[in-house]
């Protein structure tokens, strides 16, 4: 029985490519199940028979670990991402993002699309960055809280919002938007993706985990715009 | 001339056809079960469209296939006592009785609720729902509802079928008054020879 990997939906393309590469090395291709990190974490906590968990969010991995579902010593934060400001393709001027940068003025009476700043990780990082840069109070009332980064991306791509905050990996793949600025690394907590072997995970799953965090595995993710560490 | 009727209509495998003219008064339509009596009444009322022919009542053309005349049922001013009652189940007896009365012009009303209630013996039924009525009670309410609608013509499909003799007598007396004093044309279906004898100005046989 091939290992079952639960992974955040935003890793769909990159992790699938990694699984294909693994299969090309004469291993059985792991079964990948993509959904929101929160849904997957709750499944793990309910005791489902899964082997690996790749979360887009350290907080949910913490929760899973606290509930004793993670095999000790197997948790590694192996991917990083960046937060970018986007505008619909062909619109919006480049902006240097720094303390007190003029986002509110650029928005005018338009909206700022981002994932839910209270709930979804990308939104939380975005809010942290805007707060650190001192512009959050000015734009908070104009924020559109999308269900996910992808939804925020779609709102900008459709021109419903003149600006949005998403991960660099998302912005890269959508032709309808362009990146107008990148948030300084220090403005928000590090955006990292942890992987861990779950309690009862198979030896083959552990081998796959090791592959993911190996240089060869990380190289695949870099092709999709992720940073690695 | 109260009725000048020539009708043809196909129903499933059967062909219903009838032609007759009748002078003023009450015309009894009789014939065996399934002859098409109810169908004829429905066509006169405008509820069933004939395939061909015409319907003239009291000089007015209500339907004429050739001339493409087809007066809507609500403008034919016909009071119809259905063979199966057809009371409105969501209205109490009083509202059923007054349904047509409220829609009639003041001048067209030739009978009032009190009178109808009295000779049909409906006094205790006014606040009841139709579904709780006995067979004969429902029939009486249906008669009252048609009379109260201020109609200029009456169609009655075996209106006395399940009523006892004394009640029958009272209702027959009212029908006679409508026939003789108000001179409304009436088309009447019955299987009872005595009833036909007593009420009918003329007889039309079907089937």
């Amino acid at each position: 029985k091939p290992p079952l990997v639960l992974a955040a939906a935003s890793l769909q393309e990159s992790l699938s490519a990694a699984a294909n590469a693994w299969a090309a090395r004469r291993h059985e291709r792991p079964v990948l199940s993509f959904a929101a990190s929160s849904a997957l974490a709750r499944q793990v906590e309910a005791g489902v028979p899964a082997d690996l968990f790749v979360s887009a969010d350290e907080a949910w991995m913490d929760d899973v670990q606290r509930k004793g579902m993670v095999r000790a010593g197997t948790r590694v934060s192996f991917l990083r991402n960046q937060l970018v400001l986007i505008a619909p393709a062909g619109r919006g001027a480049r902006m240097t993002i720094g303390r007190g940068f003029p986002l509110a003025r650029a928005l005018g009476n338009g909206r700022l699309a981002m994932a839910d700043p209270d709930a979804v990780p990308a939104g939380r990082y975005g809010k942290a960055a805007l707060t650190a840069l001192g512009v959050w109070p000015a734009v908070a009332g104009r924020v559109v809280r999308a269900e996910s980064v992808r939804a925020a991306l779609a709102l900008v791509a459709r021109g419903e919002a003149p600006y949005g905050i998403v991960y660099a990996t998302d912005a890269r793949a959508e032709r309808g938007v362009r990146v107008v600025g990148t948030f300084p690394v220090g403005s928000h907590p590090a955006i990292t993706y942890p992987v861990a072997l779950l309690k009862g995970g198979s030896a083959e799953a552990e081998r796959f985990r090791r592959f993911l965090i190996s240089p060869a595995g990380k190289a695949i993710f870099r092709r999709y715009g992720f940073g690695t560490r | 001339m109260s009725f000048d009727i020539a009708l043809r209509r196909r129903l499933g495998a059967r062909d219903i056809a009838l032609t007759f003219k009748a002078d003023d008064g009450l015309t009894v339509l009789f014939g065996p079960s399934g002859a098409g009596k109810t169908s004829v009444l429905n066509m006169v009322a405008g509820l069933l469209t004939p395939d061909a022919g015409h319907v003239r009542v009291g000089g007015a053309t209500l339907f004429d296939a050739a001339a493409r005349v087809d007066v809507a049922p609500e403008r034919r001013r016909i009071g119809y006592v259905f063979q199966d009652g057809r009371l409105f189940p969501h209205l109490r007896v009083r509202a059923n009785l007054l349904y047509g009365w409220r829609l009639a012009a003041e001048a067209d009303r030739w009978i009032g609720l009190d009178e109808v209630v009295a000779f049909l013996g409906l006094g205790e039924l006014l606040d009841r729902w139709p579904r709780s009525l006995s067979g004969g009670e429902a029939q009486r309410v249906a008669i009252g509802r048609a009379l109260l609608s201020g109609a200029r013509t009456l169609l009655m499909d075996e209106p006395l079928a399940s009523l006892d003799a004394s009640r029958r007598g009272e209702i027959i007396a009212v029908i006679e008054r409508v026939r003789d004093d108000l001179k409304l044309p009436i088309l009447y279906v019955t299987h009872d020879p005595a009833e036909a004898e007593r009420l009918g100005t003329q007889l039309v046989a079907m089937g």
Partner: protein
Amino acid sequence: MLTPEEWAIVALSLRVSGVAMAVTLPVAFGLAYLLSRGRFPGRSLVDAVVHLPLVLPPVVTGWLLLLAFGRNGPVGGWLEAAFGVSVIFRWTGAAIAAGIMALPLMVRAIRLSIDAVDRRLEGAARTLGAGPWRTFATITLPLCLPGVLAGLVLGFARSIGEFGATITFVSNIPGETRTLPIAIYSALQIPGNDDAVWRLAGLSVALSLAALVVSEWLARRGQDDRAGHVL
């Protein structure tokens, strides 16, 4: 007992669902009547389109709404140009999403009742002098009231629970589009926040329970005394 913020969410949910029902009910009735009584080419197509929001994942429906009502969408562009209004990111948009998602349920229930109306009673009303409209209002409509009520209950419950299409279409804006299910979803995203989820879910349940009890009471009042038959 409830925090002011929770009250605001409940009030918003009620407003969104209430408006959605008020607007959708006549539309649903019209469609149900058309599908029950109408004989026209393209009837099956209308039927199918009405069912679409049920069949498509809500996110797709929300996305289609975004395409249609968005600034550059056909309906949205026209609304903007003609009336200067925009429903996107507004509670009105949430009401549209809720109404659209509830529509198929309402149409089916109402249609079932219209199908069951004894048309001979309508004929009887006509002979008593009622025109088609009055016949409709005094006979047909009251006779299919059980279906209208059932449709309303289903629709209201569905709209109180509506999530996927709403968040995709009008996002999650506190005080504007953050209805109960969206607040629940937000709460679900945060680890260790289950208490808030349960509170909010309890609120949803209480809300529709109340609606249910009212509707049952209305239905019972209308039916039991009319039935009368003791066999």
